[in-house]
């Protein structure tokens, strides 16, 4: 294994080194993934992981940090990612009433919502700013859907191995 599990249990001066390592690594991978596949979001599965693990504060901070990062690299006036993240949080809590958060169907359900929410927000806010923002074609929407589900399916098994040690 590239990173021994014991690394994630490290704690120095009250700071969870393992958690920092994990999320720094996730951020780097997500940035590169977004560079390789244009226009696709790889950060939201990370927020979903946090919410599934019950790490509310961490989900909030990561959501804010990644939101700022994505606002900076984006093309619209500040506010679109904020609305997107708020939608993610609201829909997560609403979906929890219907399905177990660990259920893969839950992630699929959430991903479908996020794809639709993204389209509504960005086309809406784009036109509000006088920009021509076209609806993404279906192949791109499916690509985003698969990116959410596959990223979650790939990262979740790794994450639950570390969860007891990187919990809030």
């Amino acid at each position, binding site marked *: 294994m590239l990173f021994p599990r014991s690394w994630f249990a490290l704690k120095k001066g009250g700071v969870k080194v393992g958690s920092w390592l994990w999320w720094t690594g996730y951020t780097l991978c997500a940035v590169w993934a977004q560079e390789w596949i244009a226009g696709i979001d790889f950060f939201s599965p990370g927020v979903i992981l946090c919410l599934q693990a019950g790490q509310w504060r961490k989900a909030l901070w990561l959501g804010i940090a990644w939101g700022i990062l*994505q606002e900076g690299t984006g093309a619209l006036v500040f506010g679109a990612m904020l609305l997107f993240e708020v939608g993610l949080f609201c829909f997560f809590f609403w979906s929890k009433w219907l399905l177990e958060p660990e259920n893969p169907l839950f992630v699929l359900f959430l991903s479908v919502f996020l794809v639709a929410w993204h389209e509504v927000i960005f086309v809406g806010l784009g036109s509000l700013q006088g920009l021509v923002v076209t609806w993404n074609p279906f192949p791109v929407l499916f690509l985003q859907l698969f990116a959410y589900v596959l990223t979650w399916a790939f990262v979740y098994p790794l994450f639950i191995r570390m969860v007891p040690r990187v919990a809030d």
Partner: protein
Amino acid sequence: MRPQRAVFVVLFALVAYVSLYTWNWKTGVLDRIVVVSGLEFVGGILAPGKWAQHHVTDFWTRYVDLVGVRQENDALLVQVDDFRLQMASLQQKAAQADRLLGLLDFSPPVHWKKVGARVVGHRLGPNAVLETILVDKGTASGVVRDSSVVSPLGVVGWIHRPGLHFSTVLLLIDPNSHVPVMGAQSRIPAIVVGQGPRNPLQVNYVPLNDVLPEGELLITSGLGGMFPKGLPVARVTSVQRSALSLFQDIRADPLVVPNTLEELLILLPYNSTREAVSVNALPPELVRTEEGGR
């Protein structure tokens, strides 16, 4: 939570969001903060990787993949001789044009400073809804919003959001791009509008009576002051006349394929004292109009 309280909380959040959004739209404070932080962070991650990739590719093309270099070199030497002859002739004509301009007392053209930049990323993330690329030059290098971006093949786009060391470039193919052009031979003016990736550009406002033939090169007209005059932009691929419109339906292919770009040039306007100026500081006749430069 009681229903009235929940409604109040939702309404309060909505009002707070709209207020924040409107305030930022008017002042741009949050935009500046997120552009600097977001672009610096992402650029800082991508730039070293791109640097390594570039050097590996460069090493391969320079030292390993040398098949046919001698033949190519001989052919290039012949071309260089031709170009030398052409250049000597053109230099004479340029000098003559300068003398004539001086005689006619025309105002001197705006000078342009070139800043080289490397592409470090493409459309990054879900918020990048426009066709953009990320380059490794920002305000620290004198880059300002709306600076034109070109490659040796032609116009690429312009700076959409400048950060400190990284900036996003809005590409010519984006539907929000409007570039004033003219035919290289016919000198017919038009506006080129992007239609998205893998789609030809649309050439607008060419009257039915004007003749802009297929295959003609479109160059920047210099109107609006965003681009210098004479940069190649696109080549006309189809011309159709409609009975319902006053203008022809013309399509053109861009000369630059954005996905293959690695290095490009950012052009900054200069004033007569050789000091870089922002587009906002240009004389009014050079500042682009809404239709003329975006």
